């Protein structure tokens, strides 16, 4: 028999809708409508100021799939993601486990590791740019070397990834400390009784219990890394011979849309990225369902 909705539950439902309405309306107007609009733009040859957009169908996409620069930038973005996300997670995981014990000065260590997160990304990039400077930078002074950090195509993207890892360690570490504290002590005690070493209990207790949080960090980390723009924009000069090997796909979108006034093609690049990130996100979530069968 159908349960009759009581007046109370109807009132609750009504108030629920009213309270989430601002966010929903904001989402529709500020997120969904621009997405639809961008998809439409990608099917146009855009005129200036949105006047005179000429519908051209799939031409932009055909150009996109034949554009070597787009695929080069895509590969650069993948290279950055493959380096930045794992290193960031491994380092922050180790730090989080170490800082979970009651060592002296634990709070100050946690604060220090979190500091990069509160620095403005542009300021971070500028300081790192000077450190990487080949002739006058700090790194070449300390190592007494002459490494072409930001102009060697083989090294430049790694330098950008180093800055990316450095910036994100703090945030990941804080999330992982929170997740670590949720693991019941009983598991560790039982493991100690059974004679497991610290390393064994780390791999057999800590990691499996952290998997949901780890997947969240991996997912947001990958999405953020695939959208990277500010670091290569500020660290690598356009006249650097490594430029085309570091330029990320979002940087390419910025160049087309704002420096070349070619919004239609820029929109095409963005939709292309949306599809790629969507597919990767779907893949990660499928993996998560398989491995975190909780």
């Amino acid at each position, binding site marked *: 028999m159908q349960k009759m909705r009581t007046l109370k539950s109807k009132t609750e439902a009504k108030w629920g809708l009213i309270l989430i309405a601002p966010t929903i309306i904001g989402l529709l107007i500020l997120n969904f409508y621009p997405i639809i609009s961008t998809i439409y733009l990608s099917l146009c040859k855009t005129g*200036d100021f949105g006047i005179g957009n000429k519908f051209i169908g799939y031409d932009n996409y055909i150009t996109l799939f034949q554009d070597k620069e787009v695929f080069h930038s895509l590969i650069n973005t993948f290279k950055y993601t493959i380096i930045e996300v794992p290193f960031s997670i491994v380092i922050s995981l180790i730090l989080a486990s170490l800082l979970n014990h009651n060592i002296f000065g634990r709070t100050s260590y946690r604060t220090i590791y979190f500091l990069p997160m509160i620095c403005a990304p542009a300021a971070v990039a500028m300081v790192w740019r000077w450190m990487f400077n*080949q*002739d006058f930078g700090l790194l070449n002074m300390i190592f007494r070397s002459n490494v072409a950090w*930001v102009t060697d195509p083989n090294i430049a993207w790694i330098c950008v990834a180093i800055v990316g890892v450095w910036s994100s360690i703090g945030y990941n570490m804080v999330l992982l400390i929170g997740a670590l504290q949720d693991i019941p002590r009983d598991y560790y005690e039982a493991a100690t009784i059974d004679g497991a070493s610290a390393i064994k209990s780390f791999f057999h207790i800590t990691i499996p219990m952290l998997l949901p949080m780890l997947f969240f960090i991996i997912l947001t980390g990958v999405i953020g890394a695939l959208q990277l723009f500010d670091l290569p924009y500020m660290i690598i000069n356009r006249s650097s011979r490594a430029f085309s090997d570091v330029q990320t796909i979002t940087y390419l979108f910025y160049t087309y849309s704002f420096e*070349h*006034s070619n919004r239609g093609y820029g929109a095409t690049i963005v939709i292309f990225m949306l599809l790629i990130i969507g597919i990767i996100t779907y893949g990660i979530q499928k993996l998560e369902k398989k491995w975190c069968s909780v």
Partner: protein
Amino acid sequence: MKKILSILLSFVVVISFISCGKSNTSNVSKVDKKGSLTVAIWDNNQLKGLQQIANEWGEKSGYDVEFEVFDWSTYWTMLEAGVSGGEMPDIFWMHSSYAQMYMDSNVLLNLNSEIAKDDAIDIANYYPGISNLYSNKDGHYAIPKDHDTIAVVYNKSIFDKYGIAYPTKAWTWEDFASIAQEITDKGKTDGVYGAYLDCGNNQSGWYNIIYAFGGEVINDDHTKSGMDNPNTIKAMNFVKDKILPACPSQDSMANTAGDTMLISNKLGMYIDGSWMVNSYYSLDNIDDLAWVELPWEDVNNNNICDEGERVSIYNGLGWSIYEGTENSDAAWSLTSALTSKEGQIKQSELGVTMSGYVGLSDQWASSFEGIDLSAYTDIENDGTLIFRPYSKYAGRWEDYFTEAFIPAWNGSASMTDTCKSIATYMNGLLDSENE
């Protein structure tokens, strides 16, 4: 105690949020208001001077003038948002990178009838390159406001250290190259270089050399590339063979900017524009710096600097009026006050730019005490001014220049071949602009 502290802290935070985040608006003159005009600009350095001129006009005309200063990129975003259906300022600056776009989109008021009626404004009095930039077959859309030129700034302490005589304006580009080479050779152990020219230094760099050699970057119609012109190729090969050996490596130049090296006593000579003088003027070691005119190139081998052999690229802003302004008469009146001869003189005396009105630049040169900036103004008589090469979407090929020249700069490709392939690509871009 804790509660009081936290209330105090939140109060401080809220106040600091309120006080930052407002764009720079200035005092509005208090006159019996017939109406008010908004003026948008992007250079805070010029605000004071312009506001003064506008207030004097406001007292006579009975209008309020409110200035709004944005930073460069916010300015164009603001204008674009305004065009698509928001609030537009009545009067605003126009720039070569955007002029054609705005003119083609019916955003700017056609000024022909106003110019004809106004005795104070005669287009012939302004630099032709600038007035041509801001006009098309339908007429004029902006009145030239100012212009800038290029000169060589050199570090006297470097010249003294290596016992080299200061350059004079009689020098040719060959002299420039050999002085630069001498400094680089003598400064090897100290890491000091004579010159600096990266592929991205176009307006304040190799554009000037191309035109001095008789070449061009783009044709006069802005429809075909000039990068495969034989004189252009000759100029770029001169850069490659004679100037680049005296410069830091291309990698070094991609790492560090030329003005940074100059003021850190690592560079003897740098080519820079008149708009940068203000940033040098505030330095501690300003007394080490001096300016000299750009060299010339003896194209016809007659040992005389003829017309077109000494070239400086120049650019200029314009004052535009919004097509849909409600106060077009008042807006024109203010624009006229700013760009008339008197207004331009006042601007030069008060501001930091050379005027768009021909022949009034001396005021600017003398507004910086203690340094001699005649290099920027004399070149208008001693040399030829060529307007900065542009087309409707110049950003596309300017970016391309920087990236495409890298192999030619660092020796992994031939300069001649690179110029030719750049010309082909640029022609493709220009064709798509004009279809």
